């Protein structure tokens, strides 16, 4: 339990350091790096590298954005096994549905309820 938390801390922190280095050394914006890391999660997921990291590090790998790309790739993989080619179009969003729908609904609610500070 405690070791799970330490591994999540180390791996999640390391992914964020990597992203921070790309921002600082590569001089690109945080938004570009967020896009880059989702794509990297999808690519490393497809190569079979991100899955073992998720198994080992749990939330340390699933909570950072590469985990989002990995989730889409895994969802497509599962869906193509049962639905064939159509799964290419349904699998990604199905697997990421919880996160995406929550992001849209909660963000909309927060933006409507809270007032920005001047």
């Amino acid at each position: 339990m405690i070791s799970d938390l330490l591994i999540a801390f180390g791996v999640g922190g390391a992914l964020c350091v990597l992203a921070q280095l790309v921002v600082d050394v590569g001089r690109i914006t945080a938004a570009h790096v967020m896009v880059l890391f989702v794509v990297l999660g999808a690519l490393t997921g497809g190569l079979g590298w991100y899955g073992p990291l998720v198994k080992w590090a749990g939330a340390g790998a699933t909570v950072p954005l590469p985990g989002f790309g990995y989730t889409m790739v895994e969802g497509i993989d599962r869906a193509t096994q049962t639905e064939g080619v159509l799964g290419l179009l349904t699998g990604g969003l199905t697997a990421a549905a919880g996160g995406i729908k929550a992001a849209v609904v909660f963000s909309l609610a927060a933006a409507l309820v809270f007032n920005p500070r001047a």
Partner: protein
Amino acid sequence: MRSGVMRVPQEKDADYLALAARHRPPTPVWRNAVRAFVVGGGVCVVGQLVTDFFEVHGQTATRAASPTAVVMVGLGALFTGLGLYDRLVQAGGMGGALPISGFANAMVAPAMEYRREGLVLGVGAKLFTVAGPVLAYGLGSAFLVGVVRLVVGS
């Protein structure tokens, strides 16, 4: 003839770029890295505690990932609304932005800021300033990976 007209420095001008680089304050790369590590690791520990909660309540490790994402997104939206998550991003840089709670922050913050431009083109559109590109390229790359896997696998 351009004589007598003071030349305005252009973004692509080599001299101007060199001058700008000399005057740019040095980026504290090491300090930023340490902060990103501590804040990002901390957010992931919260995520792991949420995952553990769902596992204790009968989800497998794989199935706990989705409700964990939901909770982390909810926390990110809530703390952005309260004005606290932006401080976390200021302190931790990508340590605050890279976790999925930072994805929610990147949706809520511009939507709140542009609320005066209306509910449709202000809030509705600005929600997707960062989320739009992330979803477009995430789903796009996942599609391509899926095609390759389908072709290679068959």
